[in-house]
C-alpha cells in the first residue's frame, strides 16, 4: 500500500479522498491555488503544496507542477479525483514516467474512451447496443445521410462531454446550421471540431453502471445508478438502484458494461453510461474512466468505500470482493448543492458562505468542500457539496434527504437547496417517473411556491438584522417609546 498519496484536485472530492487516506493511515498531500488558500481540503491533508497560475483552475490543470509537487513530497501515487486531469491520458503517462502511480486506468484505455466516436465503435464491436448513429467526417455528408438515422437527431461532439457541443435537431431544415454550430462549439471547448449524429431518444433515462476492474481481467459491476434528473445537461439528483427497473433489464445493462470493460482490459474504477428509451431499449452513451461525482450512492447501498478500493487496486492489489459478495440493500439518493439561482434559469451565483450548519441526521452523508466564511467565486465550479441519504425504501430515502435539506443551513450565497427539496417531494419523482427532461417538464410546479405564510417573519428577521433599523426600533428613550406616535 502507498505510504503517501497526492490528491490532484480540490473542493468536495479532494476532501472525500483525503478522508479515506486518513482513515487508512496513508499520508496525504494536497495541492492548492492561492485562491483556495483557506479551503477545507488543505486542513485534511498532512501537507499542502501551493501551485502557481494566473487563473485558479489552471493550477489544477498544471501537469508539470503537480508532478513536481509529488516528487518533492515523495508521494508515491496521485489521485486525480474527477474533472481536471482525471481523464487526461497524457497526464497519466507523465505521472507513470515520473515514477508515480496514477490511480486510475492506463492511458491507452483513457484515450480510447475519451474519443466518443472510437468508444462507440468499440462498444458496438463488443455487442453493446449503441444508438443508431452517423459517424461522418464531412459535415455535408453527415447532413445528406441524416435520413438513415431519422429525426429527431442529436448532434454531439466527438471529443466532448458535459452537454457542450450538443444540439437537438427536430426538423430537416435546421440540420445544416446545427451541425455547423455544434462543430464550432466543439472546436472552441475541446479543440476538436469533430461531431457525430445519433438518434435522439425522447424522454430517455440516464442509467449508468459502476465498475471496478483489477487490470488482470477481473471486472465486477457495482450495479446501476439513475442520473436522469439534469439541468443544463448536468446531473443534480442521482440514485441507486434505478427505480422501476425490471431485474432482467438491470442484468442486461450491467452485463453489457462488464463486457465492455473486460474487453478494454480496464483497470480501477470506471462508469459506463447508457441511455434507456421508454420502449426498454438501452444504448451506450460513453464510458468515464474515473471516479464519478455520484459514487456515494453506490457506496451507500453496497456499504463500501470506492476510494479505498481504488487505492488497493492501484497499489497492485486484487479486487476486494467478488460479484457474489455484492448485495445492494435499500435505496440511496444524492443531490448536488450548487451555488445558483433556480428561479433565474439556474444562473450561477457568487457570494460568501456566512453560515453553514450541516444537520446530523442518521443515514445521511454530507460531502462538502466548503466552510463558513469561504468565498464562492466564478473561478471554480458552482457545486458546493453533495447530500446523500440512505433508506430502506426509495420513499424513505427521499424523505430523509428532503428532511436533511430542510435542516441544512447554508446562507450567504444563493443555492438550489429549496429547489431540490421541492423535487424530492414532487409526486412524479416519488412515483419514479424519471427521464432527462423531468426538470423542464415540471419546471412550473418546481418553481418557487407563491407567497408563503412565513414571509413576514423572514422579512422581519431580515429587517432586524439591519443595524440602522434596530437602532430606530430599540434606541428610543422613555417616555417617548411608551407615548408612541402622538401629536398634539
Amino acid at each position, binding site marked *: 500500500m502507498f505510504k503517501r498519496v497526492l490528491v490532484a484536485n480540490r473542493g468536495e472530492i479532494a476532501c472525500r479522498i483525503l478522508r479515506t487516506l486518513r482513515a487508512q493511515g496513508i499520508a496525504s498531500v494536497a495541492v492548492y491555488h492561492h485562491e483556495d488558500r483557506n479551503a477545507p481540503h488543505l486542513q485534511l491533508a498532512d501537507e499542502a503544496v501551493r501551485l502557481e497560475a494566473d487563473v485558479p483552475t489552471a493550477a489544477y490543470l498544471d501537469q508539470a507542477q503537480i508532478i513536481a509537487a509529488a516528487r518533492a513530497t515523495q508521494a508515491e501515487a496521485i489521485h486525480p479525483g474527477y474533472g481536471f486531469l482525471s481523464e487526461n491520458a497524457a497526464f497519466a503517462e507523465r505521472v507513470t514516467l515520473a515514477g508515480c502511480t496514477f490511480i486510475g486506468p492506463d492511458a491507452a484505455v483513457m484515450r480510447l474512451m475519451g474519443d466518443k466516436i472510437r468508444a462507440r465503435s468499440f462498444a458496438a464491436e463488443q455487442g453493446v447496443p449503441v444508438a443508431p448513429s452517423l459517424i461522418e467526417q464531412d459535415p455535408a455528408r453527415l447532413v445528406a445521410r441524416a435520413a438513415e438515422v431519422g429525426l429527431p437527431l442529436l448532434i454531439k461532439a466527438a471529443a466532448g462531454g458535459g452537454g457542450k457541443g450538443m444540439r437537438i435537431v427536430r426538423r430537416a431544415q435546421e440540420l445544416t446550421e446545427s451541425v455547423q454550430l455544434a462543430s464550432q462549439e466543439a472546436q472552441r471547448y475541446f479543440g476538436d471540431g469533430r461531431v457525430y449524429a445519433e438518434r435522439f431518444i425522447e424522454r430517455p433515462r440516464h442509467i449508468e453502471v459502476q465498475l471496478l476492474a483489477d487490470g488482470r481481467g477481473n471486472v465486477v459491476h457495482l450495479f446501476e445508478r439513475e442520473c436522469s434528473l439534469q439541468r443544463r445537461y448536468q446531473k443534480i439528483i442521482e440514485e441507486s438502484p434505478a427505480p422501476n427497473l425490471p431485474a432482467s433489464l438491470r442484468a442486461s445493462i450491467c452485463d453489457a458494461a462488464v463486457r465492455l470493460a473486460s474487453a478494454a482490459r480496464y483497470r480501477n474504477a470506471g462508469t459506463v453510461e447508457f441511455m434507456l428509451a421508454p420502449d426498454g431499449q438501452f444504448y451506450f452513451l460513453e464510458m468515464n474512466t474515473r471516479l464519478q461525482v455520484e459514487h456515494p450512492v453506490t457506496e451507500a447501498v453496497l456499504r463500501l468505500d470506492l476510494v479505498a478500493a481504488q487505492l488497493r487496486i492501484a497499489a497492485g492489489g486484487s479486487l476486494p470482493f467478488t460479484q457474489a459478495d455484492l448485495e445492494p440493500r435499500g435505496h440511496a439518493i444524492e443531490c448536488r448543492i450548487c451555488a445558483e439561482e433556480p428561479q433565474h434559469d439556474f444562473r450561477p451565483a457568487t457570494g460568501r458562505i456566512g453560515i453553514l450548519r450541516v444537520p446530523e441526521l442518521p443515514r445521511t452523508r454530507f460531502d462538502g468542500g466548503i466552510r463558513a466564511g469561504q468565498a464562492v467565486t466564478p473561478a471554480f465550479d458552482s457545486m458546493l457539496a453533495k447530500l446523500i441519504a440512505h433508506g430502506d425504501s426509495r420513499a424513505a430515502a427521499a424523505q430523509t434527504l428532503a428532511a436533511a435539506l430542510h435542516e441544512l443551513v447554508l446562507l450567504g450565497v444563493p443555492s438550489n437547496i429549496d429547489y431540490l427539496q421541492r423535487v424530492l417531494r414532487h409526486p412524479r419523482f416519488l412515483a419514479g417517473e424519471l427521464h432527462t427532461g423531468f426538470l423542464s417538464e415540471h419546471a412550473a410546479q418546481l418553481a418557487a411556491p407563491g407567497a408563503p405564510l412565513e414571509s413576514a417573519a423572514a422579512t422581519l428577521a431580515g429587517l432586524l438584522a439591519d443595524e440602522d433599523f434596530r437602532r*430606530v426600533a430599540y434606541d428610543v428613550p*422613555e417616555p*417617548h*417609546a411608551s407615548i*408612541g406616535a402622538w*401629536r*398634539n
Partner: protein
Amino acid sequence: MRILESAVRTGDAEFRRRYTHNKALAQQLKSRQQAARHTRPARDLERLASQGKLLPRQRLERLLDPGTPFLELSSLAANMAYGGEAPGASCITGIGVVAGREVIVHADDPSVKGGAWYPLTIKKIVRALDIAIENRLPVVHLCDSAGGQLQLQSQLFPDRYMAGRIFRNQCVLSKLNVQQLALVFGHCTAGGAYVPALSDYNVIVRGTGAVFLGGPPLVKAATGEVVSADELGGCDLHTRRSGTCDYPARDEQEALEIGRDIVAQWTRPPKWRTPEAAAEPPLLDADELYGIIPADIKQTFDMREVIARVVDGSRFHEYKPDYGTTLVCGFAHLWGYRVGILANNGILFNDSAIKGAHFIELCNQNDTPLLFLQNITGYMVGREYEAAGITKDGAKMIMAQTCSHVPKLTLMCHGSFGAGNYGMCGRAFDGRLLFSWPNHQIAVMGGEQAAGTLAEVKLRQLARTGAAAEPAAIERLRTDTLKAYEEQTSAYYSTSELWDDGILDPVDTRNALGVALSAAVNAPAGIPGNGVFRF
C-alpha cells in the same frame, strides 16, 4: 402615596353640560389647528411641488423617528395677527425624537408667504432656541425662507429680542456644547444665512438650497452683478469652494437621511434626573376632564380631579392637606419622574401663599421639578388680609418660586388673573414650558371686574367735575371694555402673541407634560439659593 378618589359623578347634568361645552372647545381647537397647519393657497402648494420640494410637515415626518411623539409648540402663533396671513407664524417648532435623541425642531414653512419671517416668526424661533438653551436640547433647523418681512422690519430687526437674538442664541447653544444641525432646503438669505453658518453641522440640497448674505436681486442692485441663486450660494459653491456647507445632498430625502445620520453621531450626555419609577397610566379617564372644567371662568373646580387624571396611577402624596387649602401641594409621578405639584383650588390667602413657598423650598431641597396648575383670580384683598401681611406672603411665594433651581412647568387650566399669575409661575418667571387649555383666560383682572372698575372710575371722575353721568355712555363703556377683554384675554390671543407655548386639548395633557418633563431634565439644575424673604 395615596390613590386619589374622584367625587365626580359623570351622570349628573352639570357634568354633562360642562362636557358638551369643553368638548366643543376642544373640537374648535382641533379645527383651528388643522386650518393653520394645512390650509394653504393652491398656488403656493403648486409652486413648492414644481420646485421638487416636500412640504415642511412631510420633511418633519421623515426627520423624526417613526412611532414617536412630537410636541408641537405654538401651532396657533399669529392666528390673530397680520390679518391671518401667517398661520403658525410661518414656521413649525416643537420637541421630537430623531435617531433616539430628544431635539428641538425649527422648520421654516415655505408654504406660508415663502417662509418669510414676520415679527412673531422671530419671536417663535427665539423662543424655541431659548427652550433649547434652558433645557440643553440639540436643535435641528429645516431652513427654507424668503427672508424677513421687510414691511415690518422695524418690528423684527433692531431690538434686543428680535432677529439678532436668534443668532445670539445659536452661539450660546454652541458654547454650551449643545449641538445644532441645519438642513438647507431652500434659501437662507441675509440674516437667515447665519442659521446654517452658526449651526455646528449643515447639509444643503443641490439645486434648491442656497445660502447668501445678499440674494441675487440685492447683489444686482448693489453692484450690478447678475448671478443666479445657485451660482451665488448653491450647493457646489458652498460644499466645494467656500466650505460654508458640510454635506451636499442630491435631494430632500437624502438631506433628511444625512441629517438623521448626523444626529445619530451625537453623544447623549446623562440627564440631570432619570425616572424614579416605572410609568403607569392614571386610573381615571382623562376624557372626564371635559366634564370637570367649568364653562364659566369665575367658577372653580377641585384640582385633585385634574391631578388624578394626569399623574401615574392617580397617586398623589399631598403636603400639608389641612392648611392653606386653596392651594393643593403634593408629590406625584409623571411618566415615572417625581414632580412637585402646586394647584389652585380658589384664591390665594396668607396661609396658602406661605404653604406654597414652603413646598417650593421642599421641592428644591428634594431636586424635584415643579408643576404649576393655574386657576387663579388673584390673592385675597381686603383690610384684614393686608393687615395680616398678604402682600408680604405673596412676595415670599414669588421669591421662592423665582429662585427655584429645579425646572418648572406651568399649565393654565382656567383663569390666570393678576398677581396670582406671578406666584404660580406665569410667563415672566422662566418656566421651561407653559401651556394652556382652550378655556383659559388671562388678564390683569377679570373682564367683568375691569368693566366694573372702569365704569366706577368714570363715575367718580364725572362726579368730581360735576358732569352728569349718562347711563347709556356708561353702559357703552362697560360693553366696549368687556368686548376688548373678551378678545384679548382668550387663550387664542395669548397663543397668537406667543404668551404661551401652545394650547393643549385637555386629554393631551399627560403626554405633553411627559415630553416636556423629559426634555426639561436634560439640563443640570440651577444654582441653589434664595433672595431675601420678607418675613
